[in-house]
């Protein structure tokens, strides 16, 4: 019995770490309320949070808080959590530490769709055309990668990675062509800035729209997270342990892609988060996906919301967030690699 209790001690330790991560995320969100051009007094927070929606437009303070800052903070947490979840999931599914959510060409597809939307919005005006096209092209890229990989004979995981590279490169070529033909004074900078990523477009409409996709997808991924362990042993072993690997992988990749495409379509491509955060999560809670996926979600949300605070407050102009996630993410990752034991990876 003594041995059994030590197992529960192990999972208690993880529970404690998860609670700590939740606390960090909450702190990060609360700090974010006070950061920005418009100064909000800490004392006013409780009063602000209890304002009825009918009074949100009543003062400049409440309208800044409710229509600019709050949706942006929520969006930052969502995008960070979702990209990190997808990263942790994809690294497990592909059994590869260098995999990021871009692996199936999804982000490249989204960027192509967005660029197309920016150019097309000169001719047709559909609200959120850029976001809609970005989302559709992201999903299309994944479908294309998956189809190429399924048709080809060979080790499925390797074929998927190669197919993703093919689709991603093709999308990039098409994107370059659009950039080349775009109007250099208006459209080209719009495309470039869009791709660099940022949460400055955040509003409630976007938050609600991606919530509808993110909540069920992330819930499903968390529910399936233990089975990702089995899949990560490789196809032959996983199937001898009773998993229909093709079907299970398709479900996971499908929901992972939904997550990535919805994030990129609202925020542009925010690099580095989906690659690094899962490594950090595994250093903290170990390789078991049952823990590493929720942990990625929590620290990913905290990381992006903090990076976005810097993006909107460091200098008078907005800094594209992907510059910051990379510039601050890389040394952080180097530190983790040196301190930790190689990111819990063989």
């Amino acid at each position: 019995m003594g041995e059994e209790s030590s197992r529960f001690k192990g999972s208690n330790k993880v529970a404690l770490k998860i609670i700590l991560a939740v606390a960090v995320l909450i702190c990060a969100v609360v700090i974010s309320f006070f950061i920005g051009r418009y100064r909000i007094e800490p004392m006013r927070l409780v009063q602000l949070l209890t304002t009825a929606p009918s009074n949100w437009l009543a003062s400049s303070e409440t309208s800044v808080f409710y229509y600019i800052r709050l949706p942006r903070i929520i969006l930052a947490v969502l995008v960070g959590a979702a990209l990190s979840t997808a990263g942790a999931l994809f690294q497990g599914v592909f059994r590869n530490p260098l995999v990021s959510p871009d692996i199936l060409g999804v982000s490249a597809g989204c960027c192509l769709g967005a660029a197309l939307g920016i150019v097309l919005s000169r001719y047709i005006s559909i609200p959120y055309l850029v976001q809609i096209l970005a989302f559709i092209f992201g999903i299309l890229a994944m479908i294309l990668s998956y189809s190429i990989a399924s048709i080809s004979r060979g080790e499925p995981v390797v074929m998927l990675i190669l197919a993703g590279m093919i689709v991603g490169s093709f999308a990039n070529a098409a994107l370059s062509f659009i950039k080349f033909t775009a109007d250099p004074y208006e459209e080209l900078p719009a495309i470039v800035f869009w791709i660099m990523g940022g949460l400055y477009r955040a509003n409630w409409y976007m938050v609600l729209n991606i919530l509808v996709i993110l909540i069920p997808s992330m819930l499903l991924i968390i529910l399936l997270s233990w089975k990702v362990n089995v899949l990560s042993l490789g196809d032959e072993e996983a199937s001898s342990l009773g998993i229909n690997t093709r079907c299970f992988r398709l479900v996971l990749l499908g929901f992972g892609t939904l997550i990535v495409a919805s994030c990129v379509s609202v925020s542009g491509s925010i690099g580095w988060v989906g690659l690094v955060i899962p490594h950090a999560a595994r250093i903290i809670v170990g390789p078991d996906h049952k823990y590493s996926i929720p942990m990625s979600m929590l620290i990913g949300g905290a990381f992006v919301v903090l990076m976005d605070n810097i993006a909107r407050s460091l200098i008078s102009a907005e800094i594209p967030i992907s510059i910051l996630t990379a510039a601050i993410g890389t040394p952080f990752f180097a530190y983790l690699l040196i301190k930790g034991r190689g990111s819990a990876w063989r």
Partner: protein
Amino acid sequence: MAIEAIDLEFGYNEDIFISGCSFTIEQGKIHAILGPNGSGKTTILKLLNGTLKPRRGKVLIDGYNVQQLGRKALARLMANVPQEHNGVFPYTVLDMVVMGRNPYLKIFGRPKAEDYLIAEEALDMLGIGHLRDKCYMEISGGERQMVFLARAIAQEASYFIMDEPTSHLDFYNQHKIMEILRGIVEEKGCCAIVSMHDPNLAMRFADEVLMIKEGRMLKEGETLEVMTSSNLSKLYNMDIKIADFEGKRNIVYV
């Protein structure tokens, strides 16, 4: 209750790797598959566990066609012990063994306390309970083989498929693994199908031997009947004699 292979043929295009293989594998026994490198031992095992689809013939497990059973149903009947393993995540030994419970979990299920208990019992049964919290990549090859064996036990399957489980192990561990396997088969009444390179191990531990040469069955039957010097010489194309030493039959090359 048995595995029946009926007239198996397997190959790609013109190349035929396996042909005319029919045999029955009964429970409560250790079946050794012997044959030179490239003779088709691994292919036969992969046909038995449904990884490969035969071009002709079929494999029946307890009367069900392997190719028509779902992965989950099959995993409850048959466990595989891999020869080597190229995993990437350093799971603990206990986490690895508890994955053997997967075929009994629902779609969104994860192992519960009783599954961990079964996994721990499997570890204790093999005398490696002390390794539970170690990373399975940081233990010795012999210990790792035991971990995979424990996972197969936790899977509670009636058939164990083992592709050269002893080929990476030293002399002592080869015998230890086989002795433990012997114990499991006797205790649980299950059945192990083991491909191996060392005919002496087969001689000592197998109840039945299946000899494969160039994709065809050379001999099949009870160990003492099949393991004759003429059969072994034919199988390996070398002059093999059998010597009695302190009451045990030993295979020697002269």
